[in-house]
C-alpha cells in the first residue's frame, strides 16, 4: 500500500518534471528560432549530409563537377521537402523539440571541438570536464566552508569572529568575477607569480605531473576569487539558519532535558536542517555544471560557460539548444532524485497526509 502510494506520487512528479523540461526546451527553441537560425541548422546539416554521400558514393565517381553539383542540389531539395520545410513553423517546431529531447543534438554551425569535430555532443563533452574541475570543486569547497563555518559561529554567536563575519558578509554583493579582476591585477600584472588566465601553460607540459601542476596553478585565482566573494556570506546565512533553528521548542526541550551539547547539535539541529541543506548542495552542484559565463570569460577558462558565450556570439544555435536541453534534463533528474529520497524519508508523503 505504502509502496504503491510512493510510486504513484513519484510517477506524478516525474511526469510534471518532464513536462517542465519539455516546456523549457520549447521556449528556448522559440527564442532561438525567431531569428530563423534553427532552420539554418537543419538546412546546413542536410546539405552536408547530401554532399558527403554524393561525393563519397563510388557510383557517382564517373560524373563531372557540374553534374555532381546538380545532383546534390536535387537531392538536397528533395530532402528539405521530406523534412517538411514546406510546412508551417508551428509544426516544424515540434520536430526540433523531439530532436532536442531525444538528445539528437546535431552538428554545430561554426564551433568545433579541439579535435576538430562539429558534433555538438563531442564539443560539449570536451568542455564539461574543465568546468566540473573548476566550478564543482569551488562549490564543494564553498559548501563545506559555509556548513562548518556556520555551525562553528552559531555556537560562538556574539564572539568577535562572529562580528567580523557579519561585517564582511555585504562584500558578497560583488560577484566572484569582480574579485577576479583585482586578483589578476595583483597576482598576475603586478607580482607576476600566477597566470592571467587560461587552463594550462602554453605550450602544455608533456609530463603528466607537470601538466597537473600547471592546471592547478591556473585554478588558484578563479577559485580564490569565488572564495573571497562568497565564503563570508555563506557562513553568515548558514549561521543565521542554524541559530534560528536552535531556538525551536524541541531544541530547547532537549537542552532542558540536559542532553550533551554535542548530541543536541547532531540530532536536534543538524538532522532536521539536513534536507534543505542537501537540496541546496545538489542544486548548486548541478548549477555549477553550466559554469560561470563571466568568470570563465575573465579568466579565459575553456569551460561550458565560455562555450555558451562563444555559441551565442556566433549564433551557433545547435550548441545553445544542446546546452539548455542537457542542463534542463540534469536539473529535472536531480529534483526527481531529491523527491525520491524525501518520499522515502518524509513521513508525510510515506503515510499519505497532504
Amino acid at each position: 500500500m505504502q509502496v504503491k502510494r510512493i510510486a504513484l506520487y513519484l510517477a506524478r512528479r516525474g511526469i510534471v518534471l518532464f513536462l517542465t523540461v519539455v516546456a523549457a526546451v520549447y521556449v528556448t527553441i522559440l527564442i532561438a528560432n525567431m531569428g530563423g537560425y534553427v532552420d539554418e541548422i537543419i538546412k546546413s546539416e542536410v546539405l552536408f549530409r547530401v554532399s558527403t554521400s554524393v561525393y563519397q558514393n563510388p557510383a557517382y565517381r564517373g560524373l563531372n563537377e557540374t553534374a555532381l553539383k546538380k545532383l546534390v542540389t536535387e537531392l538536397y531539395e528533395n530532402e528539405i521537402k521530406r523534412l517538411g520545410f514546406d510546412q508551417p513553423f508551428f509544426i516544424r517546431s515540434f520536430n526540433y523539440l523531439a530532436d532536442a529531447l531525444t538528445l539528437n543534438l546535431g552538428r554545430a554551425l561554426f564551433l568545433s571541438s579541439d579535435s576538430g569535430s562539429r558534433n555538438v555532443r563531442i564539443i560539449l563533452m570536451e568542455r564539461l570536464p574543465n568546468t566540473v574541475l573548476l566550478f564543482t570543486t569551488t562549490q564543494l569547497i564553498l559548501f563545506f566552508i559555509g556548513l562548518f563555518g556556520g555551525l562553528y559561529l552559531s555556537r560562538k554567536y556574539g564572539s568577535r569572529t562572529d562580528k567580523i563575519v557579519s561585517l564582511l558578509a555585504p562584500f558578497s554583493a560583488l560577484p566572484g568575477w569582480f574579485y577576479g579582476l583585482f586578483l589578476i591585477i595583483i597576482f598576475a600584472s603586478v607580482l607576476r607569480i600566477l597566470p592571467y588566465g587560461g587552463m594550462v601553460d602554453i605550450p602544455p607540459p608533456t609530463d603528466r605531473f607537470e601538466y597537473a601542476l600547471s592546471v592547478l596553478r591556473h585554478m588558484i585565482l578563479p577559485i580564490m576569487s569565488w572564495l573571497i566573494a562568497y565564503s563570508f556570506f555563506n557562513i553568515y546565512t548558514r549561521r543565521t539558519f542554524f541559530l534560528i533553528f536552535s531556538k525551536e521548542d524541541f531544541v530547547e526541550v532537549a537542552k532542558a532535558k540536559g542532553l550533551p551539547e554535542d548530541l543536541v547539535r547532531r540530532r536536534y539541529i543538524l538532522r532536521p536542517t539536513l534536507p534543505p541543506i542537501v537540496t541546496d548542495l545538489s542544486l548548486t552542484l548541478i548549477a555549477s555544471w553550466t559554469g560561470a559565463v563571466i568568470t570563465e570569460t575573465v579568466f579565459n577558462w575553456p569551460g561550458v560557460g565560455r562555450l555558451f558565450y562563444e555559441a551565442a556570439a556566433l549564433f551557433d544555435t545547435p550548441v545553445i539548444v544542446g546546452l539548455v536541453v542537457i542542463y534542463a534534463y540534469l536539473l529535472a533528474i536531480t529534483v526527481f532524485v531529491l523527491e525520491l529520497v524525501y518520499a522515502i524519508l518524509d513521513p508525510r508523503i510515506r503515510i499519505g497526509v497532504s
Partner: protein
Amino acid sequence: MMSSIIAEGLKSVASYKSALIGAAIILMLVGISIYTVAAIPYDEAVRLWRAGEQTWIEAPRNAYPTWYSYILQKRLPETIIKDSSKPELGVNKVIVPAGETIKVLRIEMSFAFDYDDIPSEINIFYTVRYNKSAPQITMTWIKPDGTEIELRKFNPGSDGAYYLSVDASLASREVERLVNKFGQRPSYELTPTVSLFAVEDRSILERDTVTVMKGVYRLSVEGLLLDPQSDFDLKLVVYGKVYGWAGTDHLRRDIGIALLWGTPIALTFGLIASVSIALIQMAIGAVSAWFGGVVDNFIQRVTEVFIVLPFLPTLIMVSTLYKIDIWTILLVVIILLSFGPGVKNYRAVFLQLKESQYIEAAKAFGAGAPRIILLHLVPRVIPTMIPAIVYSVADFVFLEAALAILGIGDPRTPTWGKVIEDSFYGGALFKGLYYWTLQPAFLLLITSLSFALVGLTLDKIFNPRLREV
C-alpha cells in the same frame, strides 16, 4: 500601520553606522546622476562616446588621470597645443615678401616644458593654401640646450598631418646623429618623441636612464610661399601623459564621460529591475496563493519552467540574437525573472497569511479578492520585501556590467561595464594601465556595497527573528 512600521524602520536604520555610510554613498551617486543628466545630455554623451578619433584627436591616447601625478610624486606632462593661426604668447608668424610673388614665411613656436616625464606623442596638423605651386616648408626642432634637429622638409600639397612620433626616417636620422655624437647606438628602439625631449648625454642610450630635458622648446618653421595667395598654418600638439580626472582610453576618449553617464544608467537599471521584479513576483505569488487550485497549479508549473531555463545564458541568447539596447535588455531581464524562485517564497508567505484571522474577518465583511489582496495581504508583505529589493539592486548593477564585459550589452551607451570591457580589449592589465579598469570597478564596488549595507541592515530591522540572533 504600514507607515508606522516604515517610520520605525527608518529610525532604527540611523542607529546602524554601516547603513548610514551606505545611504550617504547612495545619495552621493544620486547627486552625481542628477548632475550628469543635467550637464551632459544623453545624446551628446552617446555622440562623444561613438565619435571615434576625429573628435578626440587632440587628446592623448591611454593617458592617466591627472591625479596620478600626486600619487607618483612626479609631474606627468599635460597636453600642449600651439596653433599658428591663433597668435598668443610664444607663437609668432611672420610673412615677408621676397620678390614679386615669392614670400618668406617664418613661424616660431615656443613652450616651456617643466614636467618630469617625456610626452606620449607629438603630431603636427597643417593647413595649406596655394594656387599653382605648393609652398616649401622646413620644420626644425630646437631643444632648450640649443640642439637643432631638422624634422622635415616638404611641399604640402594639401591639408594634412605629420605624425612626428612615427616618422621612421626621422627616427633613423636621430639614431645616426646620436651615433656621431656618442660613438654608440642606443640600446633600444629610439622613437623621435624620446630623442626630441631627452637630455643630450649618454643617458639617452639606455631605455632606463633616459631623462627629460626641462626648459623652453621651440619649433621653428621656415617656408617659401610661391603664390601670392599662398598661406600655411600649423598646429603643434604635444600629447601629455595625463588627461582630465579619469584619463583616456585607447581611442583617446575621455573615460570621465563614461564614468559619469554610467552612474544614472547603473542606478536606473538596478532600481527598476529589482523593484519591478519583486513587485511582479509578489503579485504572482499572491494570486497563486489566494486562488489556489488550477490557477495555483498553473502558476507553479510556469515558475518551474522559468527555473529550468538557465537565466544568464538565456539572456545572452536573447540579447545577441536580437541585438537589443539596454532598456530592452532590462525588459527581458524583468520578464525572465518575474517567474523566478521568488514567486515560491511569496506564495508560501501568502498561504500563511491567508489563514490569519484578520483576513477571515475581511472575508466575513464580504470583501472581494482584489480588495483583500491589495489592501490586506500586500501591505503586510511589503516591509519584509524591502531589504531584499535594496539588496538585489547590487545584483542588477553587476548584471549590466557583466553583459557589457561579455560584449553583448548595448554598444551605444557609455557604461561602467563598457569601460571595463574596453580596458580588457585594450590590454590594460598587461600594459599596467590599471586606472582604466580600476576606476569603473571602484564605482561598481561602492555602488553595490552601499546597497548591500543598507539592505542587510533593513533585513535585521524588518525581520525581528534575525534581530534576536
